[in-house]
């Protein structure tokens, strides 16, 4: 038996054991009792730390911040409170880094991703975590550790891919979609969630190391993990991290891997589609270069001149001919994720000269979800989506106005990768607009509730509802736009929407907003009270001397 096992420890003991002896200081500890208010109303017993430990301490002479998710509580899932604890701590570390005080963050990721009971609140929190990681990476290496029994999935797998340096062990697994969700969404033929060998060969950290998606594989011991962290921190202190993690800029390498990957030779299934086709119609209406994008593409990218603004619009659309069958109906797959990254980096690189007016990036959002498939996981779809997230955040940080327009569905990982990092999110005020984190069938399976219970829940917990008004009530949308017909908009409606986008671009040029700015919106003041309270209390405990 390994007495030094990291995986066997609780989240708190993991954080304590990594930090230098007697330097562990927990912020917002359980006696502060910041628990999830959303779980008791759903008859789930909350915990007083909401499943995350935020600790400051030392690695030698360096200040450290350890964020450790508890896989044993609700599968390490991220909800409003623990999400705000993580995002808030990273935001404070960023504030200090900008003031010249370096704090080295370590994320211990034992998490299934978004907490389905808190749904869109978790989604928003994770978009804030992504934004903070990328901004912080410019100052210090952000280190991720995947070494627990749950592994690291969903939006937090994207967060892992955004880290500067990712450490795994043989216990850890990493992937966008967990086996059970893939099986639910795509069937047993796609992925048998009981096939343990398949799971480890696809998602295990050893496999991820071979794919270059984990940087280092270590033994399951506290000492091995601590050594790896300290070694990386000592390199990082000397080397500036300017906005780039190679993993998410390896577009050419990854595109080649995707092209070389054998995919099933299935017939095009044009008949069956989840998508309204709105992504294509709005793209064509706004961009007027439809001819370039007739068929055979799942990603529409084009430039247009709107007055003084040069617009680069991006839309993911159904493509019955796509090589990856699970991404044929408008889903965000590996090709789409890397394609978005390419389109944005082209704009960033071409405009990166003094005095040049930077492209405004407009994400037209109608994505029914990420692609649930074996081939996607084999290639590392979490990394493809991280590349898109990374590109959107970097564009924003490099002063490109980034605006999202939701015209149809904006679901989960696909929305994280395409929309949620915008400076502003606009949405059509229409019943066909849906924002949520997982299909009702999968929510039902994962949370062990009946479909009827899942539907009833949306009535009492707006974060689990799917309509645009509920999402707007969380402060997720800056403007709701009227269109006469969201499916077939009149030219006048298109012009009104164009004018709204231009106004949002102007506001972004005047001062780009990162995701946490949504917390100050009038809607969020009323609905995201815990997200705000957690940050306020975290700040009050942050700077006490060690």
């Amino acid at each position: 038996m390994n007495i030094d096992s990291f995986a066997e420890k609780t989240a708190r003991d993991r954080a304590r054991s990594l930090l230098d002896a007697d330097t562990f200081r927990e912020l917002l500890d359980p006696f502060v009792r910041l628990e999830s208010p959303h779980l008791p109303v759903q008859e789930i017993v909350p915990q007083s730390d909401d499943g995350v430990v935020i600790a400051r301490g030392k690695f030698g002479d360096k200040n450290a911040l350890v964020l450790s998710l508890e896989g044993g509580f609700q599968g390490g899932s991220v909800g409003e409170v623990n999400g705000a604890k993580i995002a808030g701590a990273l935001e404070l570390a960023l504030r200090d880094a900008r003031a010249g005080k370096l704090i080295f963050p370590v994320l211990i990721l034992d998490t299934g991703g978004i907490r389905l009971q808190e749904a869109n609140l978790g989604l928003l929190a994770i978009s804030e975590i992504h934004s903070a990681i990328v901004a912080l990476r410019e100052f210090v290496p952000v280190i991720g550790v995947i070494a627990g029994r749950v592994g690291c999935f969903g939006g937090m797998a994207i967060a892992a891919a955004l880290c500067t340096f990712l450490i795994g062990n043989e216990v850890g697994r990493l992937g966008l979609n967990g086996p059970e969700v893939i099986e639910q969404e795509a069937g047993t033929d796609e992925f048998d969630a009981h096939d343990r060998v398949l799971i480890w060969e696809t998602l295990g950290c050893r496999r991820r190391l071979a794919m270059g998606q984990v940087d280092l594989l270590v033994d399951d011991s506290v000492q091995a993990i601590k050594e790896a962290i300290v070694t990386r921190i000592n390199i990082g202190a000397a080397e500036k991290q300017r906005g780039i993690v190679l993993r998410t800029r390896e577009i050419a390498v990854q595109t080649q891997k995707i092209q070389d990957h054998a995919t099933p030779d299935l017939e095009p299934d044009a008949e069956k589609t989840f998508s309204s086709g709105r992504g294509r119609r709005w793209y064509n209406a706004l961009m007027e270069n439809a001819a370039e994008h007739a068929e055979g593409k799942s990603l529409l990218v084009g430039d247009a001149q709107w007055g003084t603004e040069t617009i680069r619009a991006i839309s993911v659309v159904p493509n019955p001919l796509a090589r990856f069958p699970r991404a044929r109906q408008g889903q965000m797959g590996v090709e789409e994720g890397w394609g978005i990254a390419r389109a944005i980096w082209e704009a960033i690189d071409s405009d990166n000269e003094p005095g040049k007016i930077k492209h405004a990036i407009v994400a037209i959002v109608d994505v029914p979800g990420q692609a649930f498939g074996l081939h996607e996981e084999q290639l590392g779809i979490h990394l493809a989506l991280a590349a898109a997230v990374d590109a959107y955040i970097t564009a924003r940080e490099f002063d490109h106005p980034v605006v999202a327009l939701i015209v149809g569905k904006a679901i989960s990982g696909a929305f994280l990768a395409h929309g949620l990092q915008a400076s502003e999110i606009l949405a059509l005020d229409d019943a066909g607009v849906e924002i949520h984190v997982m299909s009702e069938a999968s929510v039902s399976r994962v949370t062990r509730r009946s479909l009827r219970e899942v539907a009833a829940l949306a009535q009492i917990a707006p974060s689990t509802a799917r309509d645009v008004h509920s999402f707007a009530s969380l402060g997720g949308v800056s403007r709701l736009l009227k269109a006469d017909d969201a499916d077939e908009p009149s030219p006048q409606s298109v012009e009104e929407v164009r004018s709204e986008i231009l106004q949002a671009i102007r506001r972004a040029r005047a001062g780009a907003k990162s995701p946490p700015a949504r917390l100050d919106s009038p809607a969020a003041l009323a609905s995201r009270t815990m997200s705000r309270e957690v940050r306020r209390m975290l700040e009050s405990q942050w700077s006490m001397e060690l």
Partner: protein
Amino acid sequence: MVASGNLEVLLEPEFSAVSKVRVRTSVDGYREEWTAILRTFFERHDVAAAIEINDGGASPPIVLLRLEQALEESRK
């Protein structure tokens, strides 16, 4: 304070003579078992404490063990 994934025990000194215990559990219908665990604990230890237990389905011996650990930790 101790926690082990599905069970959290928060123990604080109680300055009145009477201990206060709040149990939240995901498993219904075990009032007698909880009473027995807590009786055992308070028979062993003559303390006045405010205790909160957040239980996600732990077994009685584990609950008792965590209570002991929480008391030990609070004395450090």
